[in-house]
């Protein structure tokens, strides 16, 4: 039932990505200071925004799970956080590449957004060992939801604290770019944001579909009284 609409969504994602990438490379002008490497901005920043939104949405799904006790919401929360963590890896890698290209170092501590993102990523990376360590399925779902809610509250607080720890504010490319970004750049950026958002939604839908299908297969096997070969991984919640 989760597979419904997956095909058009995937096609839309691929089309949007293709359009946005061609806008980035052929339509948006080259950055005067940074040249070609600035193009990574169109991937890095949307990925970061989508990942952070995914973390927050994971927390909202977790609240829904705690309120309704419906396991579906736990699966939604898990998948949102899962995809966001994968996006997070990409954010940190593209961020490091961009930092190396524009500031000459792979990592800069005086870029508060990057540092905040790292801390948030480190927190969400502990979601998996945390889930793994709890055996009872109901309890696992409930505890994971509590974790997601707590971590969701942590995200804005952390960004504020790291920003404040900056004694002098580094001239930030995004801030300057956002203020005086030419229309062509802004258009390419917004298209990329939509494309990455669609990509995230598609991946979430794919994972939910796969989980629901494997859950159904498992139930059918059980109904046929056959032993389940392999089985699904322990942390992954099941969707009915």
């Amino acid at each position, binding site marked *: 039932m989760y597979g419904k609409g997956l095909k058009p969504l995937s096609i839309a994602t691929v089309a949007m990505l293709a359009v946005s990438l061609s806008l980035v490379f052929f339509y948006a002008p080259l950055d005067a200071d940074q040249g070609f490497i600035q193009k990574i901005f169109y991937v890095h920043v949307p990925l970061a925004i989508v990942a952070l939104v995914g973390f927050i949405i994971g927390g909202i799904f977790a609240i829904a799970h705690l309120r309704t006790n419906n396991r579906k919401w736990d699966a939604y929360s898990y998948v949102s956080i899962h995809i966001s963590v994968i996006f997070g890896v990409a954010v940190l890698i593209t961020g490091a590449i961009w930092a190396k290209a524009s500031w000459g170092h792979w990592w800069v501590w005086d870029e508060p957004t990057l540092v905040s993102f790292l801390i948030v990523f480190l927190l969400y990376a502990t979601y998996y060992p945390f889930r793994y360590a709890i055996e009872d399925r109901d309890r696992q779902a409930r505890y994971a939801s509590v974790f997601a809610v707590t971590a969701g509250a942590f995200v804005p607080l952390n960004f504020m604290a*790291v920003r404040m720890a900056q004694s002098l504010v580094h001239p930030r490319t995004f801030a300057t770019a956002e203020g005086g970004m030419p229309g062509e750049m802004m258009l390419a950026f917004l298209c990329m944001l939509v494309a990455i958002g669609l990509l995230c939604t598609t991946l979430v839908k794919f994972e939910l579909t796969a989980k629901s299908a494997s859950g159904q297969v498992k139930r059918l096997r059980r109904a046929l009284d056959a032993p389940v070969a392999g089985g699904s991984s322990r942390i992954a919640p099941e969707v009915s």
Partner: protein
Amino acid sequence: MTPSRAAFAAILAKDLRSELRTLQSLPAMALFSVTTFVIFRFGLDRTSLSGSLAAGVLWATLLFAAVLGINRLFVAEREEGGFDAIRLAPIDRSVLFGAKVAALLVYLLALELVAVPIFAIFFLDDAAGLGPLVAVLLLADLGLAATGTLISSMAVNSRARDLLVPLVLLPLIVPLMIAATGATEPLLALGGPSYHRFGTWLMVLGLYDLIFGLVGYAVFDFLLED
């Protein structure tokens, strides 16, 4: 006394009494902090500290010592059936959260009563900053107690309790540490304490305490259901 307040007092008194009788956490925390100071003395190769180094050594040590206590906070409840008793008792479950936060707060204050003077004797040339440091310690302890209690209650029902507490707690504590070290650094600066952004950092600490106190209070019920 309302039933909640009576239950709160009873749980807190039970915790403190059992800690006083068994001495499971506090001596270990104090000893650990002193040993860590000695390790920092050689690790940094410094005999006196000031400013950001002093703040970093003090807070890193207090945090890791606190983790020892946080690890053990709910062990008795789990092993001796305290959780079942709380579930059976006709009281609000958040009371257990409040009482545990209070107990952990007492542990942390007791730890600091030992660790901070020893830190001053070991490393500080000028102890004038210790007075205002009390405010930072109190606010940071409150946040550490709230977050620590929440994480400890989640981790105690898992297979890897000792592993999970530091793993999940440390990233969550980063904003608290930023604010605590930010406030402490000018207090311990060379040439007497100054109050650069002191109020701002205290406000961040207060905000952290408030947010995680409320989150813990709100979600704690779900951790006790079974």
